[in-house]
């Protein structure tokens, strides 16, 4: 690749919160590097663009596309496929694109229930049980909104992905590093990592970067942070009884939350090669329980009030089970 013709850059959000964009903007001066080294052809948050233009582009003509957000609607899926087709390198950017993230918790309920709940809240004035329709006739014509798919999916369940960059959102210093790398690659000063690599991360888990002191762990009771805050500033948070997801969560964030006195909630997803993030946490928490009698173990487990949410907070759609039974099957 040569630098005289600026390679094209795109960034898109599907079912996401916009935090990934903010994280990219938070690389501050690096944005200018992006502007200097790329022709930004498509980036909703920052600039106007036309889908027709994207559709008009030659396949593979975009060098780098950062795709954030999960696939919640048929519309998301369409764009994911479109951008895959147009991009040489497609990066699943951020937790939503990599594994579904918080919105993935929606996979714990049937889509119908989600719709029903949203339009029957305490302040909703909906006596006639009106729900949005994918197509609706108004006097002047017909209006359309996208279809919600049965479950939310990470992008790699819809299209082929070249790289993964986890985090909710990815840490700006990691984004900066990746931008630097890509620019080096453009100038032929560096090589791209092998396809499928998880980029912008450490190769261990959060504990690796956590400064807290750790010992052999034996937990007699799990606790909730509001009951023991502020936690001991130097001791491992899990050892203090708070179910901290750090041991199973990919490193790369500099153990932000633990160093701020809060437990890791797992936004960086599983470590290298791990097939199911939740399984790793189940075994991690189970391993530190100091009891042999089933009754006593159960009592200790009661200290984790929401086991499923605890271990799949960010990763349900990307897990082996992907969703709850009710999301697959109609009651």
């Amino acid at each position, binding site marked *: 690749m040569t630098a005289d013709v600026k390679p094209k850059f795109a960034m898109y959000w599907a079912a996401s919160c916009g935090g990934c964009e903010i994280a990219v903007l938070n690389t501050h001066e690096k944005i200018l590097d992006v502007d200097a080294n790329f022709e930004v052809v498509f980036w909703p948050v920052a600039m106007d663009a036309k889908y027709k233009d994207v559709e008009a582009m030659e396949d593979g003509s975009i060098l780098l596309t950062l795709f954030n957000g999960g696939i919640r609607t048929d519309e998301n899926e369409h764009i994911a496929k479109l951008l895959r087709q147009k991009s040489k390198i497609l990066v699943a950017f951020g937790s939503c694109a990599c594994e579904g993230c918080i919105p993935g918790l929606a996979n714990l309920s049937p889509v119908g229930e989600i719709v029903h709940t949203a339009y029957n809240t305490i302040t909703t004035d909906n006596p006639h049980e009106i729900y949005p329709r994918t197509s609706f006739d108004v006097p002047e014509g017909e209006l359309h909104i996208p279809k919600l798919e049965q479950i939310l999916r990470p992008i790699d369940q819809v299209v082929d992905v070249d790289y993964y960059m986890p985090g909710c959102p990815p840490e700006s210093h990691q984004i900066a590093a990746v931008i630097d790398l890509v620019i080096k690659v453009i100038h032929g000063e560096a090589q791209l990592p092998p396809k499928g690599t998880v980029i912008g991360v450490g190769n*261990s*888990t959060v*504990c690796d970067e956590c400064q807290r002191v750790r010992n*052999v762990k034996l937990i007699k009771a799990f606790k909730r942070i509001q009951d023991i805050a502020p936690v001991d500033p130097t001791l491992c948070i899990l050892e203090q009884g708070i179910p901290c997801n750090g041991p199973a969560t990919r490193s790369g964030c500099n153990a932000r939350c633990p160093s701020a006195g809060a437990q890791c909630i797992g936004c960086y997803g599983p*470590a290298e090669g791990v097939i199911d993030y939740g399984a790793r946490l189940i*075994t*991690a928490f189970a*391993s530190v329980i100091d009891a042999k009698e089933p009754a006593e173990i159960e009592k200790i487990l009661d200290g984790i009030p929401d086991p499923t949410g605890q271990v799949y907070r960010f990763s349900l759609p990307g897990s082996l089970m992907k969703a709850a039974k009710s999301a697959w099957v109609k009651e």
Partner: protein
Amino acid sequence: MSEKKNERVGVYVCHCGSNIAGVVDVVDVANWAAEKLGHQGVVIAREYRFMCSSPGQELIEKDIKELGLTRIVVAACSPHLHEKTFRTAAKNAGLNPYLVELASIREQVSWVHTDKAVATEKAKAVVAGAVSRVIENAPLEEIKVPINPNTLVVGGGIAGIQAALEIANAGFHVYLVEREPSIGGHMAQFDKTFPTLDCAACILTPRMVEAGTHPNITLLTWSDVEKVTGYVGNFNVTIRKKARFIKEADCTGCGICQEKCPKKVIDEVYEAGLGYRKAVYTPFAQAVPNFPVMDKENCTYFIKGTCKACEKFCPTGAIDFKQEDQLINVDVGNIILATGYDLFDARRVSNYGYGRLPNVFTSLEFERLSNSAGPTGGHIVLRDGKTTPKSVGIIHCVGSRDKNFNNYCSVICCMQGLKFAHLVHEHTGATVYNFYIDMRTAYKGYDEFYQRILEEGNLFVRGKVAEVTDAARGEREKGKLIIQVEDTLAGKQRRIPVDMVILSSGLQPRSDAKEVGKMFGISCSTDGWFTEKHPKLDPVATMTEGIYIAGCAQGPKDIPSSVAQGAAASARVLDKILQREVILEPIKATVDKDKCSGCRICNGLCPYSAIAFLADDNVSEINPALCQGCGTCVAACPAGAISGTGFSDEQIMAQIDGLLLRNIEAVEA
């Protein structure tokens, strides 16, 4: 799973005569494998009458050589039977033995299912599972560790003595540790031994002396093992040698100190509470070693600060009140645990009245009574010490085969009861009643002994004794002990008045067996006996390489079996010693230091302390020699940083997919 592997797999389906072929359509399975599993790399699938036969093995070896097979699946019996066989075959053909998988379609299919169609389908799934798995298998190399030729034997009973002598005679050094002042164990307390009735002391003493004087045996009595570290071939053991307050170097064992000692103490251990000893004592005349031991709790000097009679009279000045416990540290390659048993405490069966009714005796008490060297000089008398009983009841299975106490049979009680019957009969001519549930007189010469006792005119009542009481009903019961029993042969209740009752108590695990097991890294059964590696095929080895068990520590048994096990254990040890190095199964866990976050969650999980935390690098590390390959840490590592050979995630995941025929559906879809 991972990227497509290009392995060449051979599948061999065994008929096992009609054992498998009778239920599973082996031809169909083989054809199916060849056709449906081709995409996974199955290049040949054969069926054969007996895969484990030489021609069967040659078939595999030939294919490996000629077809260049890189993986082998044998669908036959349980891997516990023939895994080694086929691994060896592969090895002979130059293929790493760990690239062979057995698919158990006999024990798990043909023998347990009847519907041919269903069984054949399951067999296919099992084969598919094995094929998917074997592709993920990695070649493994056996691990070799040098063996320290020294051996530790814990327990100086007959089993321990036997084991120690066998090894010592073979020319290797043994540390024999006994917690009591003398070796000899329970056998030293017995008078006669069934069924031959030869005197225990006569046959035991020479062995004790031999052990005590053997140049290759370091005898450490009055000592406890405190700490064990290391692993097979390289154990390091810390032994506490309790202070005897006697300088062993100077003591001649003349016994004067015992004569002169003014303090009499009831001997609870050796004399079972029937007799006395002094505060400084040797438990019995033939004790080995014959240095006395000073009993601190009872010695007047230690209590009052004056006396020292023993010191005054000792001709060699061997008394040393200042002596302290000694910690001895030894390196050994193998360890034999022969820690024996505790006698069941007959007090627990309160309705038999032991401890409440004076003339109810335990088996051990009776052993002492009938022993010519015992407190009564071998006279069988009542508690009063003079009255000879005219009638004696012997109750079997006390504390054994009883759901309130121990479910198991204590093995020796029947024969012990018969022995007692004989001795009573011989010494007193009293009428003897035996109360038994079943007579168990297996083994050589035992039933003959039973016949002999019957001929002597001893009486036998089949039934579990309900109660022993002194509450007399009528004249004939006055002043007697009445045994209340249902005679299940005559089918009627009986009340039998006797002068003396002997409880043939059962055996139970040492009260500290669990702690001892933990210290040596072996487990106990639910009953509390040490667990052997295999109940039939490996009765003296344990799950921990280099640790062996012998005698009653492994379960109740009689003297011949204890001796046999002592010898067997020593044979296993000698075998290891002579190999000079030990080969460890290469099923081990390893930590990927780059992935390890040092969270230390695995640290608490290993019962063999194989996992060490390296604080400086902030990572955990596994010592392959200590690791027993259970895989618990592999499953526990939240970072997926620990992997296990032989049973890797990849292998098991692939097997799951195979068993669910997912690999096939995937292709067909």
